[in-house]
């Protein structure tokens, strides 16, 4: 019986993660880059 309780305690945080990942919907992060679409060679990449 104690072993079952221990296993349940181990499973609980995993179920919490499952809930967290399925319920939390993050909006698209960050703004659109202000850099333009290039119409000239930007030169050597650093």
């Amino acid at each position: 019986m104690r072993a079952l309780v221990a296993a349940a305690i181990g499973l609980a945080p995993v179920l919490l993660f499952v809930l967290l990942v399925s319920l939390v919907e993050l909006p698209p992060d960050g703004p659109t880059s202000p850099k333009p679409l290039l119409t000239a060679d930007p030169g050597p990449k650093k």
Partner: protein
Amino acid sequence: MRRPASLVLLALAVFCAAMAPFLRWYAFPRLAKIPPNQYQETVLEARPATLLNYSTLQAEKVEKITIIQTLKGNVEESRRIERDAGRDVVVWDALAYVTGPDGKMVSQVPERYIFDAHTQAPVHATGETVDGDPVRREGIEFKFPFLTEKRDYQYFDAQTRTAAPIHYKGTRTFRGMEVYYFEQTIPWTKVAMPKAMPVKGITPKVLADSGLTRWYTTKRMFWIEPVTGAPVNGEEIHKEELRNAKALMGRDTLTVFEGHVKMREDYLQSVGELVSANRLSVLMLVSYGPWSLTFLALVLLALSLWLEARSRRAAPAAPAAPVTPPV
């Protein structure tokens, strides 16, 4: 189970054992996604190349042609489309800007590519275009999906506005990295005139009215890092012709552009570094994390059982201590 220590170890073992498949099959498909605000430029060159000189109407060998390709994530459009689509969406505004050896524009192809941030499946929404024309993409473009498989994919060709198979041709090593090599050949196909022409006064309508038609063929090659699906190298053997040109230019066929386009060395290096960094993040979710947790679960379980067995072996010895003295 009697000892608290073995019970704690058992709980931890169960936690690790459950977290391993959770990471690989539940968290990874939901958490691994292409960021919607990505900005990436790539410079490709064809050295030498053949280019049509519009003033002499002759195809000329030139030292190089440069293709500047920019991908810019449009976050506002992503948000707008996500509201209707109900899933994570990425909108890439792309521009392939081709310049001659003098730096002047030869052609440009602007595009809007809309796709699922996790699977890279195309998402159809208003604004999906190539050179201003609405399109309905099938297949992938620019990048392959996470955990690319050893199989053929449908790859969208912006010139023909259609998807065609891109074939898996084997596993290669590119700069120390194991990559999948893909190849797509687009046979000679009649394509639309570009909206922006390199010479003032010549418009797509003028060319179309004169009866000229534009034809194109290409062999597209990609070296794909399979974990991230990102290309670490790309090449294209590209040919473009104007046909039905006899009345206007004295010859039926005129080469507009011909060249073997390759990524420039500095971009090969920077893309390689970017892909290596992203690869590690994805591997944490699909491989390193799950395998480490599985190993840890086994060790913890073994330790827990061992502690338990030891406590049970020691337990029967205790009541044997008080021995009744002989009478």
